[in-house]
């Protein structure tokens, strides 16, 4: 299953990539593939913007605006102002997580 087309904020900077393959390991959606000595994005629409690849790339070759794909969290953020936050800490009884 894939989510919406052409909305994902993921970017890969090939000039910084060393091809270490850490992003392939942490990505739960198989967005990347090894392409010779570096990595490339094979299916951008599969990305769920979890941020695992950016977090674990020690060469700064990946950028993404990470966040949770949770409507309750985004609505919560709109109501309270500020960043999306899910009620998973027990403060409110949303369904998220």
């Amino acid at each position, binding site marked *: 299953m894939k989510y919406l087309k052409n*909305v994902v904020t993921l970017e890969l900077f090939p000039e910084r990539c060393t091809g270490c393959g850490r992003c392939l390991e942490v990505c739960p959606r198989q967005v990347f593939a090894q392409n010779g000595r570096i990595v490339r994005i094979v299916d951008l629409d599969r990305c*769920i913007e979890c941020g695992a690849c950016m977090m674990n790339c020690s060469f700064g070759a990946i950028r993404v605006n990470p966040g949770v794909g949770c409507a309750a969290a985004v609505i919560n953020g709109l109501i309270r102002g500020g960043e999306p936050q899910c009620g998973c800490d027990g403060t409110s009884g949303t369904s998220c*997580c």
Partner: protein
Amino acid sequence: MAVELFDLRGAGNTNATANVLTVPARWSRRDRLDRLKCRLFNSFRMHYTVDPGIYAVGAPDRASPVLVTANYKLSFNLLRRELAGFQAWIVVLDTRGINVWCAAGKGTFGTEELIRRIRSSRLAEVVEHRSIILPQLGAPGVEAHSVKERTGFSVEYGPVYAVDLPAYLRRGRKATAEMRAVRFGFRERLELTPMEIVPALKGFAIFLAAVFVLFGLQPSGILFHSALRNGLPAAILGAAALLSGTLLTPLLLPWIPFRAFALKGLLVGAVTTAALVFLIPAPALQSVYLKAFSLIFFPAASSYLALQFTGSTPFTGISGVRRELKFGLPLYIVAGAIASAFVIFYKLEEWGILS
């Protein structure tokens, strides 16, 4: 506080080499019951925790693998259950009772907490090797290279699901492509639907009260029989919309057209509403205004509820959810306003003011 909840009969309570609590891999009846309660009751789930720290499964020694998890007790239980027959250490991070994936997103299953817990549990003295295995879904919160730099422990990302751990460990800690991918089959979706249905019931109670007042309201006061007779079809339609958005849409997810959850929910809600509006032989539903209200309000409600399921799926991202809400929220407000207008028209017609 949480540790005495384990059934420790027959087990040596502490591991002699490191003086840590040994937990059994096997689940007790209570563990199975607790899992059910986690899926049904938010209040239970939110307080189902295990104390952060280090635990032993089997009789681990200084060479045994170290697995890291969250202090949501269901996560911890699912992990220890898969470790039957293995000798391993479990390091539990303080994620405030939240599962690995969500806690990683918040950063509580994160670099700082991991480093703190490696130090406070004196992991470097417990084991002689310098590697720890994290669940892959913890990766959004953990900078593996920083952990290595600051503690000497290198992070290996294990499989997404605990159920794949035995195979992963036996294969010399190599994950297959399947182990690296999130799965979201029918059973996973079914297991998560109660957490959609139960919170929605709160809104449904308010809806029922409104229906009762609205349909009971007559020039002479609120009449019970009128509320029951005319309100019942609306109550049924409401229940159908609730189930369309929280149960049918999640279960049929891959087979419903459209990628947007709001559209999926709208379609399912429209189909169930239309079918019921034309099938229920209620006099109230003969009203054009009430028909129009139903065909607008209930599909919209189902759409909104289906949108909430984005939070339970592992393939939605925040940019997509923002896009859906940007178009969806104004439409819900407009639909609500138009639906309210039709209800007013319906009441005016019923009272004979209109015509």
